[in-house]
């Protein structure tokens, strides 16, 4: 009987392993292959060499997504804290309110922001002004923050709500004021949530192309836009090369960030 069981269990994971090799690992190798070949399939470094034309673009993408992640953290941490400290029934409602916008398609949400902020848009009609917002860096960053804020708040909230309530009491009994309790006790304990929040905002921000297309008003091009343009124009080899570099950059930064958090328990909750 022992033997029978072990056979069943080794078979259980088999479809997934097969699936992962065929549809996750193999496609990544194909990206590498495309990045190092030209259209006829001959080996070349040209695609990767041509990336130096995009250095400025990588810089701009990095700048905007780092800023957006930072703003998300500044706005999201207090929000997560307030929600986690609210009575249990209210917490549920707040989390629901936070998730609901995520159920509206990202394209629609972004478009709606554009319709509001546009030159002849709702805001300008309402205020009777001629504010020019679309096409600025601020508009793109706002879009990223707006679209991805829940990804920052949710893991931090989970982390803070798991912290033992007695920690607050113990810390204040030992003479901490509220500010010190937060900076010296709560924040370090919620660090793993912060790290996964940062990851979950940074990755979609640096790779977005829709937000920059709509809120950048055509004046911005980010890495995502470039990859998309290569894809549309059929320049698959260059597109693969840019994807490869972006993937490596992101994996490196994720690796560095994971070094800071001892465990990955903040986890993903969607």
């Amino acid at each position, binding site marked *: 009987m022992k033997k029978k069981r072990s056979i069943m269990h080794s078979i259980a994971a088999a479809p*997934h392993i097969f699936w992962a090799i065929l549809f*996750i690992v193999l496609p990544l190798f194909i990206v590498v292959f495309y990045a190092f070949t030209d259209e006829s399939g001959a080996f070349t470094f040209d695609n990767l060499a041509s990336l130096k034309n995009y250095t400025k673009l990588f810089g701009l993408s990095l700048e905007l997504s780092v800023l957006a992640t930072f703003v998300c953290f500044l706005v999201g941490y207090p929000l997560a804290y307030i929600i986690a400290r609210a009575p249990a029934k209210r917490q549920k409602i707040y989390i629901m309110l936070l998730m609901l916008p995520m159920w509206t398609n990202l394209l629609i949400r972004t478009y709606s922001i554009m319709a509001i902020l546009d030159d002849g848009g709702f805001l300008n009609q309402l205020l009777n002004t001629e504010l020019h917002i679309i096409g600025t860096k601020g508009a793109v960053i706002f879009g990223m923050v707006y679209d991805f804020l829940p990804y920052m708040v949710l893991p931090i909230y989970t982390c803070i709500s798991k912290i033992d309530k007695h920690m607050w009491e113990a810390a204040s009994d030992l003479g901490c004021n509220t500010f010190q309790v937060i900076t010296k006790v709560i924040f370090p304990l919620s660090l793993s949530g912060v790290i996964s929040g940062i990851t979950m905002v940074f990755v979609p921000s640096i790779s977005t192309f829709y937000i920059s297309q709509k809120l950048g008003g055509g004046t911005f091009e980010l890495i995502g836009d470039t990859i998309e343009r290569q*894809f549309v124009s059929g320049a698959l080899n260059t597109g693969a090369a840019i994807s490869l570099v972006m993937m490596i950059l992101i994996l490196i930064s994720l690796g560095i960030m994971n070094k800071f958090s001892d465990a990955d328990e903040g986890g993903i909750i969607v």
Partner: protein
Amino acid sequence: MKKHLSTAYLVLIFGILYIPILTLIFFSFNSENSTAVFGEFSFRWYKELFNSPDTFTALRNTLILAISSATIATVIGTAAAEGIYKMRSKVLKATINSVTNIPMMNPDIVTGMSMMLFFVVVAGILRISYDDMGFVAMLIAHITFCLPYVILSVLPRITEFGDSLSEAALDLGCTPMQAFFKVKLPNIMHGVVSGFVMAFTLSLDDFVISYFVGSSKFQTLPLLIYSMTKKKVTPDMYALSTLIIITIFALLIFSNVRSGREEERRKRKAARK
């Protein structure tokens, strides 16, 4: 004072979060063809929405794709979680976990690009045109990015449940299959269901990967929305989103009320004891 401050903060952030959504709902009732100037209240765009065959095909496609990819991902993922849990080799376990998590860590655009290139190669080998793979390519791509989320929600439940009850079932004469389906599965069902729901919503909402992998033959709702927002959007997209938001809102309230009731019942039961 502090309490007022936090309430004010909540109101401010939720206010900003909901302004675009409320504007969208507001303009879905616009009689004019504009998302900035309001004429008068009308159902014009709802009527146009229901008269457009494109929207319906896209909605149908989206639902078919989401249901089938979530179902297959849940089956493969649950089996995989059980298999991974039982695995003795730690190295193998860690390797499988990190490979599984690649689509979750990688930006969607890279996953989309890699799958698209993969299907280009497959189409080349099979000597068929890329467009012919329409639905199958999309299905495979969606299952692939849903799998890690299913495993992530099932595996903790299996670990939590442990082995003792399944072993008891085996000792009492169950076959391994029976032990799994009759004893373990009902106990980890919560994780399986939430994995399914997550996979379903991810598939429903996905734009980037579908955009890269998809072809003109199989249009989903997010793809349709994208092609419509390339030009000036007419408020019928707003009408569609309003309907989706209302449906989700109703579902959320329904499930919350139900779980609230269950909690009450449990409390009462406990009190009786």
